[in-house]
């Protein structure tokens, strides 16, 4: 099929073309384009309000851009409900607030990652009996969590355990595109390092990772860095070649300072 594709390059896991999302006073995203190839791990940097969360919401299909195209593995948003669900099942998001279901056990939460594949009978059975215990155990073990946790309600877990359970739910989902919105924001330095290592380890090809960060000191292990400021791309380059003044411009207080250091002036 790839040979028939009009796209000369191999299909990207995610491609955004000239995305525009309007906001109240200024656009939340303004002409943003980017490609994410299989195996790529990309960090998204930018000050608060730069549009990082909006970009991720567009990337996981939650938000429809007013203009521009979003392609997942070369395909636009599917029309039918069933095809749409299959498409969404390939996109995994690690939410900043984790969005675990407090009232359910760890195992039931992990199995939430399979709801896209499961029909009603299994989804209901999951609320009555422990299902797929072997696979859930594996997912926990990959994240160095004890299998005994499976029967615990999520509400009884510690902060670090909850992060890992959310990660394990992603592994159960087995997505191609991994998105994470500031997953390290509320963690202490050691937990942040550990989670980041886990994310990087589990995003090898054919997967790809796009992760928003507010701390530029955690860029090790990323292939590329993207700088977003006031809804526009300021830079998109290999992580190794990032210069300190580019970061200064990204986080600068005033428009002029940013414009002075940016490759092209901002309107």
């Amino acid at each position, binding site marked *: 099929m790839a040979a028939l594709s009009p796209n000369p390059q191999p299909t990207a896991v995610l491609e955004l073309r000239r995305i525009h999302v309007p906001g109240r006073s200024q656009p939340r995203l303004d002409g943003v384009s980017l490609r994410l190839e299989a195996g790529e791990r990309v960090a998204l940097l930018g000050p608060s309000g730069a549009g990082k969360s909006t970009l991720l919401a567009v990337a996981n299909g939650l938000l429809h851009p007013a203009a521009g195209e979003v392609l997942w593995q070369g395909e636009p948003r599917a029309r039918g409900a069933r095809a749409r669900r299959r498409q969404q099942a390939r996109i995994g*998001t690690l*939410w900043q607030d984790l*969005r675990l*279901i407090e*009232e359910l056990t760890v195992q039931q939460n992990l199995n939430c990652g399979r709801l896209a594949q499961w029909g009603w009978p299994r*989804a209901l059975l999951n609320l*009555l009996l422990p299902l797929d215990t072997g696979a859930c155990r594996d997912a926990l073990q990959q994240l160095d969590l004890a299998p005994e946790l499976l029967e615990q309600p999520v509400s009884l877990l510690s902060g670090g355990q909850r992060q890992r359970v959310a990660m394990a739910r992603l592994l159960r989902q087995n997505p191609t595109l991994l998105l994470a919105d500031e997953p390290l924001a509320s963690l202490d330095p050691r937990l942040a390092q550990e989670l980041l290592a886990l994310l990087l380890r589990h995003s090898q090809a054919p997967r790809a990772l796009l992760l928003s960060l507010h701390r530029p000191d955690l860029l090790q292990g990323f292939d590329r860095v993207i700088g977003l400021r006031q809804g526009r791309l300021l830079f998109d380059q290999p992580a190794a070649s990032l210069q300190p003044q580019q970061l200064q411009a990204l986080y600068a207080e005033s428009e002029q300072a940013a414009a002075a250091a940016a490759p092209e002036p901002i309107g």
Partner: protein
Amino acid sequence: MRPAAPLLPLLPALVLLPVALLLPGLLHGGGWDLLGQFLLAALRPSGDPLVLGSLLGGLGITVGMALLGWATSLLLGVPLGLLSSRLLWRSLAGSELPAELLRRLLAVPRSIHELIWGLLLLQLVGQQPAVAVLAITIPFSALVARVVSDLLDALPERNLQGLLAAGTPAPAALLTALGPPLLPGLISYGGYRLECALRSATLLGVFGLGGLGNELLLTLQSLQFHELWSGLWLLLAVMLALEALVSALRRRWSMPARLALAQRQPVGRSSRELLLVAAALVPLLLGVGRALAVDPAALLHWQALPPLPPGGWQGALALPWLAMVGQTVLLTLVAAALAVGGAPLLLLLVAPWPWGGWLLRLLWALGRLWPPPLTALLLLFVFKPSLLTAALALGFHNLGILGRLLLEGVEAAGPEREEALRCSGSGTRLALLYGRFSGLARAYLAYGAYRADVILRETVVVGMVAGTGLGSQLRESLSAFAFDQLALLLAAYALLTLLGEDLSDRARRALLRA
């Protein structure tokens, strides 16, 4: 095998299986064309000015009765609630005993449905406008009193103790320490009671105590469905307007913190507005009372009670009490299960379609507004009179009330977890079930337990029409003026509802604790 939280609200819906099995046997064969005509007439209500005029007149009387009954029940209920607060008696007199006594005493008027009060008063003092108002006032003021005292006793005592220890006079200390925290709960509950009063006033009308309910019953019995629907749509408009007004006022007055962030409202604005509205209510209520010709003095002329029958109490005691109580309990359980389980099930069914939600809202609004005896009469077009027919009618009414509450709960649960599930590819229904029902399951069921207690009280309303339980006997005893039977029936009702109240309180506490 223990069902997880999201399944809990759906479990009562299992009652649908036996209901579906039994219903075909209850069909009496005819009546479908009548039911069809009734449903079609919804689209073409009568526009005849004569009909509309009479309906509007009836609606005015119903709303007037509701307003008067509501206002008097608040006027009586709030002081009674203060008097039955353990906290108040303890801090002012050093003993909780008077509060306990008053609480026990108020349980009696509370346990008996306003319809029974209305019909009894009708027998005692004859047909007059004050009867309906008093019938609403008696149980409602006892209910308000209970809620007020519960709210008060749940408040932390430290602030009050602090003020008293500093030498503040007791009344001032009470007002300062307990007034502001009590107000939001009181406003919210007061608004809810006004909605209840409108429903009760309509219901009392169906049983001949005046107002729109009577018109609805007459048009239904004479099969004038177009005129019936004009009345129903009018009532729906009034009810939805009232609900919107109550929830707007509730948001405006009882959550100042959230509004303050948005627009920095000046201190004391909401209390000033409250006082203004209260002041405006006084002339309004007096005007309504005059227009309805409510004369409290007329309530004092009692008719003499008929003498006991020759056999003394023997006759009354020989009634099939066990069967009647059993039927009443079964009716309560089936109706409650239908209502509690039906609402989340329907919500899940229509979840994928945007118009489905609006259709459901309309269905639920109709359920709330429709007096259950009218639904029972409609069902009797196609079903034989039976416990199940009565349960369907009562269940439909309470489905409307629980459904609205469930929707509010679903909206309050926030979209985050549902969104997360949708984003990972779950279908709409599963995302709703897992993402939103999980969090609200226990609170919803706790409310369901409270509602079951209300349903038990309401069984009399459909029992009288569908001929089941204590209600059907009540109807016979009322028309036969058999006051010995009536006295025993009232005692049975009171005992049953007090037991039910205790059980539902326990269930609610257990649900909220876990």
